[in-house]
């Protein structure tokens, strides 16, 4: 049996996790919507920001705002120190070997596009194959489709079972000498499935196939160590990791990044420019053309500091406990079917309800103050696989409570009343 090896997953009991205190760190949670206390369960779409992040953004704009890597004046020096300091924090957070392997991008989407463009330009040729899975977010499908069309390469899709788990032997069959990259989610945003990526990466590496992990939904929920996983690329979005919008990270192994051509051209990514010849800057700047999202990088650094203070393993264990509590309640709800029942799941529940469309569920729950996502979750192939047009998804963060799960269940009863 493959296991995900996620530390917090095994821990059954949660001790000393003071969620009431945690909630005080997130000012947005303390409000009413439609006259009811806000129950925010759309964390997989974006998560809320702790004071520490808001304060870091404020401090930057009030005290340190200047461009980075450019000027000799004090403010620029402070901005550069804070910006590069955040890179070191993220290197540590991901367990990367070197801070030059941390490239700032807009988010997971841009990270994957960067790899598709740059790795694709250099390493993908006609007839080559790229392997993805059925449980992709559209951002790990479309960039590869564009690349494959451009290069006359072939996109292969590994299937999933009825529980929403990857069928690993089928994936293995797709790996061939023509496979140039395996790109897959660490955790599925539509199903919650945690994939056994360590084993899969080893399997791909034994065939010399590099692996990109879409970490958009794993970074916020578990301790991730890219060296232990041995993935070649890892992408995540800051806004799902309790940080600002507009910032994300691409981790890549040095040797690969060195071999890849730049993604965009401009300032910062060069070491010298003449009309005859331009010499590109060293890593990571080769991939960071133009003025970066300085404040957001610093804000993301603050988010990582905050999460480390709470403890990723504590977060994981708490969320697993909450998920077990919610799953138990959902299993007993008549007419409700969970989509995504993998043995190892991150803390979200995707479900359909007999006779009621997710969009209507979303509206009724909203009136109860409960924010969920209704739709295809940018994962239409998953919807097709389960033969549903859409699902309702409640995705939990470590500031959510059992009381909020209860509110969700009561909200679903309310839905039933409206459509009785």
């Amino acid at each position: 049996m493959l296991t995900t090896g996620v530390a917090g997953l095994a821990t059954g009991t949660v001790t000393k996790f003071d969620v009431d205190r945690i909630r005080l760190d997130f000012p947005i949670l303390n409000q009413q919507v439609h006259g009811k206390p806000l129950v925010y369960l759309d964390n997989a779409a974006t998560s809320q920001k702790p004071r520490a992040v808001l304060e870091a953004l404020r401090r930057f704009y009030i005290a340190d705002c200047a461009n980075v890597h450019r000027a000799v004046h004090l403010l620029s020096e402070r901005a550069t120190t804070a910006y590069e300091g955040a890179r070191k924090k993220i290197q540590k957070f991901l367990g990367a070997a070197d801070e030059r392997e941390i490239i700032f991008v807009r988010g997971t989407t841009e990270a994957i596009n960067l790899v598709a463009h740059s790795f694709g330009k250099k390493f993908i040729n006609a007839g080559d194959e790229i392997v993805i899975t059925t449980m992709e977010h559209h951002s790990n499908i479309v960039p590869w489709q564009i690349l494959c069309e451009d290069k006359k390469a072939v996109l292969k899709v590994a299937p999933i079972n009825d529980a929403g788990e990857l069928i690993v032997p089928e994936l293995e069959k797709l790996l061939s000498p023509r496979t140039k990259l395996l790109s897959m989610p660490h955790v599925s945003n539509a199903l919650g499935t945690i994939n056994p990526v360590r084993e899969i990466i080893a399997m791909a590496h034994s065939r010399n196939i590099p692996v990109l992990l879409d970490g958009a939904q794993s970074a916020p929920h578990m301790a991730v160590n890219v060296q232990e996983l041995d993935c070649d690329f890892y992408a995540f979005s800051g806004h799902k990791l309790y940080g600002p919008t507009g910032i994300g990270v691409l981790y890549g192994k040095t040797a690969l990044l060195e071999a890849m051509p730049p993604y965009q051209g401009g300032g910062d990514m060069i070491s010298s420019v003449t009309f005859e010849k331009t010499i590109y800057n060293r890593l990571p700047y080769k991939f960071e053309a133009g003025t970066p999202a300085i404040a957001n990088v610093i804000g993301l650094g603050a988010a990582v500091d905050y999460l480390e203070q709470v403890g990723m393993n504590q977060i994981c264990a708490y969320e697993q406990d909450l998920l077990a509590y919610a799953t138990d309640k959902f299993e007993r709800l008549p007419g409700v079917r969970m989509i995504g029942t993998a043995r190892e799941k991150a803390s979200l529940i995707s479900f359909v309800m007999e006779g009621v469309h997710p969009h209507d569920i979303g509206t009724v729950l909203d009136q109860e103050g409960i924010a969920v996502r209704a739709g295809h979750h940018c994962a239409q192939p998953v919807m097709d696989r389960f033969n549903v047009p859409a699902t309702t998804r409640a995705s939990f963060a470590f500031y959510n409570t059992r009381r909020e799960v209860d509110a969700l269940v009561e909200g679903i009863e309310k839905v039933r009343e409206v459509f009785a």
Partner: protein
Amino acid sequence: MPDLRELYQELIVDHSKRPRNFGKLDGANQQAVGYNPLCGDKITVYLKMKDDVVEDVHFEGSGCAISTASASMMTEKFKGKTRQEAEELFEVFHHLVTGGAEKDSDTSGKLGKLAVFAGVSEFPVRVKCATLAWHTVRSAMRGEQALVSTE
């Protein structure tokens, strides 16, 4: 504060559960597909036009209660209407669900039962659900080929 009962009126819930004129239409001579990428709702509208008159109209697809009921009640309303009358109804209905109706006392008279959709105006994100079938039928009527999208 908007009221759920205003949105999910009995008539709407009824039509969403038992949509009328649902399924393919034999002898249809015009059709169009409408899509709401936000929620994945997709409907096909089939039209049987005779000269300038809607002789029959059906729809099929999957959608939320609002879009299904709106499509269902629209098909009932459109039968026997001229192209011109249908275009006018589109405008009046659109006006209703986007909240312009109060100023227009004519609205409920023209729309009849469809006036139950007035509650949608309190739920701006649901306007697209209510109008999906209407955009689609208009495009079918005009003989436009492209997939109709609410975005």
